[in-house]
């Protein structure tokens, strides 16, 4: 079925644009970049319809990548229902965002570079989802990390951008550290990395091994999906162009962790302890990030923390065993969060670069389409039925309740907070009076069309694609009785959040500030994101760097080792100068030495020969 075409098309796009893009006209670049992605989307559709119902995975083998002794890793692609969803999300939303970017990036420098990177990202992301074994998955995993690094640092003459890029890459590396250790342990345990083999043997493996594999995989997932404590890179990642935030840091890449965890469900089901930890981390992240989201003024930052928080939900989903629910939320989240980002991108575009919500307001008059589409997304994320977010979030919370009620309650509160800060953002941006100086202008259709499509998806995506049913054949069905009350409570929480937001930012403007000033310290802490970056910097980064410089380099290397080496040399020369003192130049003392020597010789000789008699 030529699965390889799916990733190769964007790769070709990348190569063409990357090598010759500089000489191309804009249109040519667009054609190559967008075309390649749309083509691969088309090919995905064709593949899916070609393969019929994918109850069992369809695998294709291409070549042996690494072989050593008995162990070998093949470059294989596989496709099953889970993959299908990911493929559709990635290529579909990817295409939309490519189209959007044509408009958004129209006036940016390094146009071809941008699209080349974007295509490269698509390639790696598709490799990631198509992989039939952990190592190929790891290829995509690292690759998307690279692309995110490149795109975050797209404006490479800006220090903060490149810093953010490095941060993203390195934090991801920490996650990958866990992932790779998991891989090593798997090989040690199963002797293979193919999903099939691993999952098949997982049942028989000792639990503690599985537990550790699970935990290590989770560390990787935490890095990629920005969970505690490794979430810190994602908010900074907003330094990249907005489409990037939408595609990579909202819709696709960051969900890779969730995908990978879901993919490894067999391992987790045999290591429940690991699953619990995932759930805890998930809910903690969800709540924690949501609280930070409350106090941000940069529109993209708000949505960034929201993304972290939503990813937390997905983690809860897979953590409590509702894998399908997690994937479900992954999809819907892709719709509305991509929309939110693209929308805010459109806003920023409208205000030609302004990102601070305090300088916005009342924009709904100027940019109606953007406003409307974003509203859909906002409602969806707040979990208002029957919008997309409602179904997935509800499924997760339901499952969570049956796993551990307190997770449910915390999740519900988070839902309230989410609704609050999203609408806070909406109100600050679109309602009230315009506080800026730029002249807002609506974005071109090439940007609006994707918005509209995504809007439709966030509105209807929920009940159009019933993911849990679709995935029923893969994941163990966990029958959770429909529980109306819980549903109502969580929905109510969302609505409450919206209401409060309305009161504070539309009905009674200024109330927010007074509230903030009343609990100044709390506000400060939250506003400064709990000083987490500062703490990391002080406890890890600085000690390592300074320690390496002062202790290891200056101290051990230059001081100790080289000191010892040069010391030996110096000692040798000292010995030399001592020996030179014998050379007094005085004949009589020379004769003295000779006499001395002869006495020694005689004594020695006589002693020894006396011995050997």
């Amino acid at each position, binding site marked *: 079925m030529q699965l390889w075409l799916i990733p190769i098309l964007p790769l070709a796009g990348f190569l063409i644009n990357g090598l010759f893009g500089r000489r191309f006209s804009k249109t040519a670049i667009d054609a190559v970049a967008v075309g390649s992605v749309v083509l691969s989307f088309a090919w995905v559709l064709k593949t899916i319809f070609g393969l019929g119902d994918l109850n069992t995975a369809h695998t294709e083998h291409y070549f042996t990548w690494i072989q050593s002794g008995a162990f070998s890793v093949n470059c294989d692609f596989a496709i099953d229902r889970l993959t299908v969803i990911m493929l559709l999300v990635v290529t579909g939303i990817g295409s939309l965002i490519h189209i959007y970017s044509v408009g958004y990036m129209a006036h940016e420098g390094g146009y071809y570079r941008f699209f080349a990177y974007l295509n490269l990202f698509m390639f790696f992301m598709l490799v990631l989802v198509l992989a039939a074994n952990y190592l190929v998955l790891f290829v995509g995993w690292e690759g998307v990390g690279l692309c995110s690094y490149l795109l975050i640092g797209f404006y490479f003459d800006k220090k903060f951008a490149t810093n953010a890029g490095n941060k993203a890459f390195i934090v991801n590396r920490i996650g990958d550290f866990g992932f790779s250790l998991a891989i090593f342990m798997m090989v040690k345990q199963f002797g293979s990395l193919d999903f099939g083999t691993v999952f098949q043997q997982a049942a028989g493996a000792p639990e503690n091994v599985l537990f550790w594999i699970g935990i290590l995989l989770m560390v990787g997932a935490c890095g990629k999906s920005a969970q505690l404590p490794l979430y810190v890179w994602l908010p900074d990642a907003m330094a990249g162009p907005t489409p990037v935030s939408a595609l990579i840091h909202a819709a696709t890449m960051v969900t890779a962790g969730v995908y990978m965890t879901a993919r490894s469900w067999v391992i987790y089901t045999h290591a429940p302890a690991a699953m619990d930890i995932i759930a805890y981390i998930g809910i903690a992240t969800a709540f924690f990030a949501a609280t930070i989201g409350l106090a941000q003024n940069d529109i993209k930052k708000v949505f960034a923390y929201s993304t972290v928080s939503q990813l937390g939900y997905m983690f809860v989903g897979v953590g409590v065993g509702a894998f399908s629910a997690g994937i479900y939320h992954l999809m819907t989240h892709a719709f509305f969060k991509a929309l939110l980002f693209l929308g805010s991108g459109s806003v920023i575009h409208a205000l030609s670069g302004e990102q601070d919500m305090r300088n916005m307001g009342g924009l709904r008059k100027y940019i109606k389409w953007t406003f409307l589409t974003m509203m859909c997304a906002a409602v969806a994320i707040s979990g208002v039925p029957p919008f997309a977010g409602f179904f997935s979030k509800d499924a997760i919370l339901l499952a969570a309740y049956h796993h551990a009620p307190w997770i449910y309650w915390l999740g519900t509160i988070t839902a309230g907070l989410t609704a609050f800060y999203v609408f806070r953002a909406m109100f600050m941006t679109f309602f009230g009076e315009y506080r800026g100086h730029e002249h807002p202008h609506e974005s071109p259709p090439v940007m609006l069309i994707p918005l509209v499509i995504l809007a439709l998806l966030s509105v209807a995506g929920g009940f159009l694609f019933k993911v849990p049913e679709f995935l029923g054949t893969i994941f163990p069905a966990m029958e959770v009785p429909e529980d109306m009350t819980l549903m109502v409570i969580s929905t109510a929480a969302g609505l409450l959040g919206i209401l409060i937001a309305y009161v504070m930012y539309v009905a009674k403007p200024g109330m927010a500030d007074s509230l903030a000033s009343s609990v100044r310290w709390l506000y400060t802490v939250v506003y400064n994101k709990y000083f987490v970056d500062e703490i990391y910097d002080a406890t890890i980064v600085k000690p390592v760097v300074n320690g390496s410089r002062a202790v290891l380099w200056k101290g051990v290397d230059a001081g100790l080792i080289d000191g010892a080496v040069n010391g030996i040399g110096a000692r040798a020369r000292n010995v030399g100068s001592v020996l030179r003192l014998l050379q007094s130049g005085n004949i*009589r*003392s020379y004769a003295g*030495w000779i*006499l001395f020597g*002869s006495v020694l010789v*005689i004594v020695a000789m006589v002693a020894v020969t006396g011995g050997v008699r």
Partner: protein
Amino acid sequence: MDVILFLVFATIAVLCAINVVVQSHPISSAVSLVGVMGSLAILYLLLGAEFIAAAQVIVYAGAVMVLFVFVIMLLNAGAESRRGRSFMVSLLGVPLLMAFLGLLAYYVQRLFRQDVTVHFGGFTGGTARDIGRALFTTYLLPFEATSILILIAILGAIVLARKELD
């Protein structure tokens, strides 16, 4: 009577030798060195080495020492100045000497067969005739070789003491 002979001349030899060492003026050293050689010549006779005894007096005490004295006169070397010192010698010199002498003397007399004694006429193979024969048969090669030695001596003297290198 041999004993007395030995003791007398041995004492003279030693005394002169000591004098060589202690005298600060080269001339007196030279003279006492002649003394040593003379007394050694007597001892040689006692050991039955007539020819050597003669050679000792003629070549050594005669020629060589005259050469020395001649040079001393030439350079009119006075009593030596006590300038300069060698810590090595002044510190270790005496003990080393004692050790050296002790070792030599001790082992020589301990290891050497005691029974043999020397008395005048105990060995008469040292006549000029015997030596001549040995010299021109067995020791022909070294004998000829010494001629080179003399040649070198002459050369050396020429090279070093000639007026100017032309």
